[in-house]
């Protein structure tokens, strides 16, 4: 009996010691394991904007995060994850109302505890989440929306946009148009009736007033977003006598317009400039009219410079998804690279410690770094808004190879198409683009 009690006591003691040793080992191991960085990635995964923008953006995030976590990205991005901490990404669908996106942003931060958010295609969503990001002191990198108002309306501390805003699309378009169409005298616009379309047209008209003061506007057409049927608009443009049509259409609207206008011979009489046309070229192929003036929202996709870095990005993306990356993919890649550079710049060097949000934000301000095919610099919005150059070219479908091509490409430097620091895009354009430095 007494022996039994002793055995029981000994066994209990051994169990306690073993438990103590085990928990100590777990704690020690936890202390040694590098932290995980949680990122919220927000992009259109469903809805009309998914196919041309949201999914290419999401795909680029997946490819790049995998490369970062494996330490296989080219230098200087070859450190694992962000500063040695593996990235754990949560992907969220941007579809739904703006109010819904604000709620989901709060959930990402307050419920899911993400360290940063990279996302948003819609300018409306960008405008809505920006003040919430500032309120919640959450590092947020806007990746594809174009409105310049984000950093013009108020100074920001936690919100950044590495990719250039939509001003360069319109200014670049205007510069290329006056190069391509000598002595242009009349032009018209067909843009979607919401912020993106309205702002694009406004900036284009303002730029044309500076570059071609004698040119006048004939038709200003703003069909509803995603309406899909453009018969009346095509008739109006056909009977307008315009020498150019400006359009910031994208996705299904762009494709529907191309199908319907081509069937009615519009492009044989009036050339068109598609400021976001690059994203549709692979899908449309021969259906995109030869002679269309094409932009890529920066130096992206088919208008990207041929660099080793760009070749690497195209190769890993195409291998995984079977199609080359388009400009939304580049925008996501640039945003993640900017975040990585800022994060690692602010890191202490100890992989077990994460920098604070404020440290990363401070490192992010005014950052300059190499991205696939271009150098990006946060040179506007007090170091929160990226600037880059842009390229425009003329579309040609190579029937022999069966591939789309962009020829007669002109690159415009960042100083040529961006307003200077301290000036809003609208004021700069209306003031005659003072200080623009073009090659």
């Amino acid at each position, binding site marked *: 009996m007494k022996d039994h009690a002793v055995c029981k006591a000994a066994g209990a003691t051994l169990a306690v010691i073993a438990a103590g040793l085990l928990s100590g080992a777990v704690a020690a191991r936890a202390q040694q394991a590098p932290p995980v960085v949680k990122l919220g990635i927000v992009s259109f995964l469903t*809805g*009309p904007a998914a196919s041309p923008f949201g999914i290419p953006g999401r795909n680029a995030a997946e490819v790049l995060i995998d490369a970062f976590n494996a330490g296989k990205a080219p230098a200087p991005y070859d450190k694992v994850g962000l500063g040695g901490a593996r990235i754990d990404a949560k992907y969220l669908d941007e579809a739904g109302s703006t109010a819904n996106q604000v709620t989901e942003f709060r959930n990402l931060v307050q419920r899911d505890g993400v360290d940063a958010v990279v996302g948003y295609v819609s300018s409306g969503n960008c405008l809505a989440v920006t003040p919430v990001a500032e309120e919640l002191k959450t590092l947020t990198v806007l990746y594809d929306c174009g409105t310049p108002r984000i950093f013009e309306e108020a100074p920001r501390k936690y919100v950044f946009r590495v990719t250039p805003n939509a001003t360069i699309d319109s200014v670049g378009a205007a510069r290329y148009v006056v190069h391509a169409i000598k002595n242009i005298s009349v032009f018209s616009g067909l843009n979607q*009736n919401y912020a993106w379309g309205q702002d694009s047209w406004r900036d284009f008209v303002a730029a044309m007033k500076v570059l071609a003061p004698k040119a006048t506007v004939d038709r200003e*057409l703003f069909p509803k977003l*995603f309406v899909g049927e453009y018969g*009346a608009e095509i008739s109006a443009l056909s009977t307008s006598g315009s020498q150019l049509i400006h359009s910031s259409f994208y996705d*299904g609207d762009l494709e529907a317009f191309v199908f319907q206008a081509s*069937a*009615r011979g519009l492009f044989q009489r009036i050339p068109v400039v598609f400021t976001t046309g690059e994203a549709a070229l692979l899908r449309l192929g021969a*259906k995109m009219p030869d002679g269309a003036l094409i932009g890529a929202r920066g130096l992206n996709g088919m208008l990207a410079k041929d660099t080793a870095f760009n070749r690497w990005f195209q190769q890993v993306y195409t291998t995984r998804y079977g199609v080359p990356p388009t400009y939304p993919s580049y925008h996501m890649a640039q945003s993640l690279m900017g975040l990585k550079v800022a994060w690692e710049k602010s890191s202490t060097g100890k992989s077990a410690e994460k920098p604070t949000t404020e440290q990363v934000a401070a490192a992010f301000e005014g950052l300059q770094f190499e991205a696939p095919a271009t150098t990006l610099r946060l040179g506007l919005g007090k170091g929160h808004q990226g600037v880059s150059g842009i390229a425009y070219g003329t579309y040609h479908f190579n029937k022999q190879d069966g591939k789309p091509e962009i020829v007669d490409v002109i690159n415009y430097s960042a100083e040529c198409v961006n307003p200077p620091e301290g000036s809003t895009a609208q004021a700069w354009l209306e003031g005659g683009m003072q200080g623009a430095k073009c090659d």
Partner: protein
Amino acid sequence: MLTTFAILTDGLVYAAYLFVVAIGLTLIFGVMKILNVAHGAFYAFGAYGAATAVGLYFDRGLPVAGGFLVMVLAGMALGLIIGTVLERGVLRLVYGKDEVITVLVTYAVFLILEDVIILIWGPGSYAAYEPLAAAGNLAIGPLVLSGYDIGLVILAAVLAVASNFALQRTRYGRLLTVVIFDRETAAAFGINVTVVYSVTFVIGAILGALGGAVMAPKIAVTLGIGVEIIVLAFAVVAIGGMGSIEGALVGSAIVGLCRAAAVHLAPQIELFVIYAVMALVLVFRPYGLFVRPRPRAI
């Protein structure tokens, strides 16, 4: 003169497109008193089905003429299947219930079908432009009309004549008219109202899908096209009167012409004009142009 001609032709084309979609919606409401929000999903399924069929057909280098038939049949077949499944599986459960409940049910069905589209076709968009390109065009001065649009107008006209003939001259049409007028009396006279409901709903679904199928070559078939069209279809039906096919015809014409005129003459009000006209009509004719208020039967 040219602008006036352009407004007339553009208005007619747009009206034709709206009529093909709206006739099914108004038919379902007229007979079953169901405001079928899922009608937009029929349109979407018709468009996706047509785009898939056109892609498969023209990839094989088959004759162009057959492509038109394949496109229409594919869309209508999907409308038949989905309409039958919905009517038998869902709507029968809510016949006789409050109208708000049936609206909510059809709205839920619409959302489910939007996700089913993603499951079947994925989030990408589809193009079925070959019939549009093959139909050629007709130049009248600087204005070039698409042969496909002319065909669409002819289709709408045939549909209007056929539906009128069917309602006035066929046995089923007369039964339908009786049920539209007074369901309870029709049942009292031995008409199997449930069968009439079923057939009507399926016909409405087929017509909605047909609308999507004929529009597929002109648009990029992508997520969300059902939402866009259902709002316009409701405006047309509200103007013409719920349950009135003549109303759908006139409502389509009014919406088409007003929109075309706005695009040519005052593009700033293009979005507003359709709903302004709808509001104006409803102020003076709350039940639409072709439907008169009736005392409620006790």
